[in-house]
């Protein structure tokens, strides 16, 4: 995995996912220490290249890099000369000339991390591209579920909400599917992507049906500002039909857990009470986010040396 791009869960094999999750699980211990830093990536440079602002993800990667002693440089487009039409490849080449060991890319349009990875020497980690993939989010979701359920194989995972515009949904559909879980989705029909069953999921329009027998319930964030009135009539109607509260959660298994990639629209995707208390594991997700991203930077950043170059005993 060293030196390889992580552009999507779609490209990963199950053993690779397992390796990342095992490494991340070990990394969680570092977060419990007084001194939350190990010297592993000393002298390595991690660049956060965020074309789209995302405080949470960027902070998570930044903390992860710093806990591994890497130098983390944030290169965000806000306040920089990067305009919409600037060649992203120019930007990438400029960055590459600074010899980073890993570049973490976020962009509002699907495929940009791939285009950048194609020209970059350093490995690229996709930190979310349009409605395509958000692999680190799905991996931390899988880690969180594993911690709660001790397995992923055979679980039933229900993903609810705006599947069409969600990179989190796609990555989780691939990830949980590869790990042997059954993935179901539900949302307003206007928010299900075309031919979604080709991704290997079953689509439902009813909350009751999708929750029946679910071990994991994952609510997705609704882009209220952009989609209200276009893809769903009103927040009130969305909350009534697809919002989760304790009463509706009873359709799922008794020990079902509730997840959300954050930030939660309280009272819309999740009731206030559900957002804050068990069985929701939202803060576990955030905590695991740092450990998971440490695992990714540990496993990926740098370039593999050939045998001849490696130091002798």
């Amino acid at each position, binding site marked *: 995995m060293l030196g390889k791009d992580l552009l999507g869960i779609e490209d990963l094999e199950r053993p690779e996912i397992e390796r990342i999750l095992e490494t991340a699980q*070990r990394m969680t*211990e*570092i977060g419990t220490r007084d001194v939350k830093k*190990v010297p592993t*990536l000393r002298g390595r440079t991690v660049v956060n290249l965020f074309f789209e602002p995302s405080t949470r993800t960027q902070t998570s990667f930044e903390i992860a890099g710093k806990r591994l002693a890497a130098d983390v440089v944030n290169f965000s487009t806000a306040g920089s000369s990067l305009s919409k039409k600037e060649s992203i490849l120019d930007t990438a080449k400029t960055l590459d000339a600074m010899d980073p060991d890993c570049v973490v890319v976020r962009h509002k349009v699907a495929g940009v991390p791939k285009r950048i990875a194609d020209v970059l020497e350093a490995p690229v980690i996709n930190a979310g591209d349009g409605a395509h993939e958000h692999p680190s989010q799905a991996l931390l979701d899988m880690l969180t579920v594993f911690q709660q359920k001790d397995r992923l194989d055979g679980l039933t995972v229900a993903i609810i909400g705006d599947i069409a515009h969600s990179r989190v949904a796609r990555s989780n559909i691939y990830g949980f599917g590869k790990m042997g879980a059954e993935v179901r989705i539900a949302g307003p029909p206007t928010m299900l992507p075309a031919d979604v069953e080709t991704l290997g999921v079953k689509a439902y329009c009813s909350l009751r049906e999708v929750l029946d027998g679910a071990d994991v319930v994952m609510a997705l964030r609704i882009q209220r500002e952009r989609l209200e009135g276009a893809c769903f009539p009103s927040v009130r109607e969305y909350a009534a039909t697809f919002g989760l509260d304790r009463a509706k959660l009873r359709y799922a298994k008794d020990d079902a857990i509730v997840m959300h990639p954050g930030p939660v629209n309280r009272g819309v995707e999740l009731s206030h009470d559900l957002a804050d208390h068990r069985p929701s594991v939202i803060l576990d997700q955030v905590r695991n986010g740092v450990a998971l991203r440490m695992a990714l930077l540990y496993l990926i950043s740098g370039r593999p040396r050939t045998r001849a170059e490696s130091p002798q005993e």
Partner: protein
Amino acid sequence: MTGTRLLDDVAIRRALMRIAHEIVERHESLAELYLVAIPNGGVPLGRMLVENLEKLSGVQAPLGILDTTLYRDDVQGTAERPPLRVTEMPSSVDDRVVILVEDVVNTGRTIRAAMDALMDFGRPRAVQVVALVDRGRRELPIKIDFVGKNIPTQPGESVELVGEGGQLEGALEVLLERSGAPGSRAGVGTPGGDSSKGVG
């Protein structure tokens, strides 16, 4: 695994009992002891030592497990990053006498990494080292305080603590194996603290 057996289970248990005696002799107060095992090989040895010490003195010393992988000096030179092993440090190391427990010590690099890791958990009053086997080919100024057996070896030989069924369980033994050319590197991250690796 095949190879020359250097120590069998009986010899290992005898050595650890002797080491326990030495630890008791050397420390006035056992209450300040904190055993920290380096996985994977150090862990079953650490457990035995804790039991032995309890038998001898009635005091149960805490046992921590400390993975040194993230502190290795060669972690950036590998083709793939080595897998991490478990770390469990149940209590603070501040003002304790920490005894690191390792199965095989060779170059001293793992002990160096372990000491660095330990410092991230606090400020021990003293750090001492137990090694079941000391191969003696030191590359760093590291002294072993309690040695099970000195076994001088050559580069290209590997010395490994193994248990039954590939696990570090049941009857243990220490095996010597001659691998290929001297100085060749074994695959990273093979469990068992194999001292033919860059860190030993």
